[in-house]
């Protein structure tokens, strides 16, 4: 059976599609604010510049009527919910607009006791994809301007949300650029791989945008900010940068939901999601773990099986 046959595949997603979702979000947000189901809704508002959008916490019906969904709604809003980080969830239930990839983060945060499902009203978005960076923002999503992570999306449907806006539509024949890049790096000789990453990490300025935008980097004391002892040099030098990105990849292993926000926000264009993706791939191969849409009891690095692979151990 052709797996693609019963999906609604198109060559472009027109503004009308997003408009329909926008309407649905507004209707839902207004409703849950009106009936006081929630104290606020985390969603997106349009930006000043054409084709941009910004996260927003709306608490009134008037504001809620301005919420939008467009290909510019790139942010993973779950970052706003954890107490330790942003804590917009101060009291009462909060509504949140979530794409499939954001839902994975929400599930992960529930696994890690940072969120309770009953504190959330999730307005799921059946997302066909969002803009990549530095692309033309015309309002229409095409093969030319879709984000790299969306090319291989497996979670168009926000399963487990309270309501879902949109109908399943996706772009046809997207090349899996990230998978190809992974394969390219994996195929490099070891020294070349080191050179590749050294070049990228050396560019890092330690602005911490990757950390700050990550739903899972909710530590109050980041290891790299600690100086007694200093496990990772805080100065933006190649050595500390390498250590920082390795430590971060390790800390996210088995937790990362794959939203690729770290990569998106990096002002220095470091392909950070490749690291997370590599770890996810390893944990899938070794322990059959995949970040999913529902919370689990323990992540793959917080549990073990007695017969886990140990072929690398003498």
């Amino acid at each position, binding site marked *: 059976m052709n797996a693609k046959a019963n999906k609604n595949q198109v060559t472009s997603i027109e503004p009308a599609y997003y408009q329909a979702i926008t309407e649905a979000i507004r209707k839902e947000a207004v409703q849950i604010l009106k009936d006081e189901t929630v104290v606020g809704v985390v969603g997106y508002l349009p930006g000043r510049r054409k084709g941009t959008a910004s996260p927003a916490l709306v608490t009134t019906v008037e504001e809620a009527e301005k919420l939008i969904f467009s290909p510019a709604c790139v942010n993973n809003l779950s970052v706003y919910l954890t107490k330790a980080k942003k804590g917009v969830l101060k009291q009462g239930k909060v509504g949140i607009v979530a794409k499939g990839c954001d839902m994975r983060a929400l599930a992960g945060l529930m696994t890690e006791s940072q969120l309770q499902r009953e504190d959330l009203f999730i307005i799921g978005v059946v997302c066909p994809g969002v803009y990549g960076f530095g692309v033309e923002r015309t309002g229409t999503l095409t093969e030319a301007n879709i984000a790299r992570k969306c090319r291989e999306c497996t979670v168009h449907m926000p399963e487990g949300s309270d309501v879902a806006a949109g109908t399943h539509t996706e772009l046809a024949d997207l090349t899996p650029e990230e998978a190809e890049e992974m394969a390219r*790096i*994996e195929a*490099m000789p*070891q*020294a*070349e*791989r*080191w*050179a*590749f*990453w*050294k070049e990228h990490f*050396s560019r890092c300025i330690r602005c911490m945008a990757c950390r700050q935008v990550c739903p899972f980097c909710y530590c109050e004391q980041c*290891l790299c900010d600690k100086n007694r002892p200093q*496990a*990772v040099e805080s100065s*933006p*030098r*190649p*050595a500390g940068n*390498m*250590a920082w990105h*390795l*430590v971060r*990849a*390790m800390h996210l*292993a*088995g937790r990362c939901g794959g939203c690729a926000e770290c990569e998106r926000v990096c002002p220095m264009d470091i392909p950070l999601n490749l*690291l997370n993706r*590599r*770890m996810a791939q*390893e*944990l899938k191969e*070794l*322990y059959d773990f995949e970040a999913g849409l529902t919370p689990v009891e323990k992540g*793959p*690095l*917080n*549990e*073990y*099986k*007695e017969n*886990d*692979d*140990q072929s*690398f*151990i*003498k």
Partner: protein
Amino acid sequence: MHAEHIKHDFEPKIVAFVCTWCTYAGADLAGTSRMQYPSNVRVLKFPCTGRIDPVFILRAFQKGADGVLVSGCHPGDCHYMAGNFHARRRFAAFRALLSFVGVDLNRLQFSWVSAAEGGKWVDVVTELTERVRTMGPMPEFKELEHEEQWSTFAGASVDKSTVLNSPELKEAYDSIG
């Protein structure tokens, strides 16, 4: 058994992170049995491999280790029941990461050495030392330690040996005309 008096050109720095109950005791047994092995290894004792953080391995490489050994109790023998099981997953993941960024995994060895396996301790340490010796010093992290952003020592990139001599500069001027 390794004949130690042979002098080598390169003596690699080997760091071993071991658990106190099995591998440390195994190394003690190698000592009480008077087995011989290369003296390159420096042992850091932990209660359990479960305590060993990947950051320590990274740090050891940064601080000049040419090879790192992590060793603990065999599965099922952990003094703390499951520390080595957790460590096993953690290090399986960490290895994948290191390999992905281009670290040669031949420099990082994991082993289970029990308190009764003095001989295995000697084998593991000897093998790692000799393997790393043939590989030579580990350049990656050490080089990185000394690298800077260009602006830090702006000018270092200018090679003073090519400081102009006038005829050359003159020629350059002339060519532009």
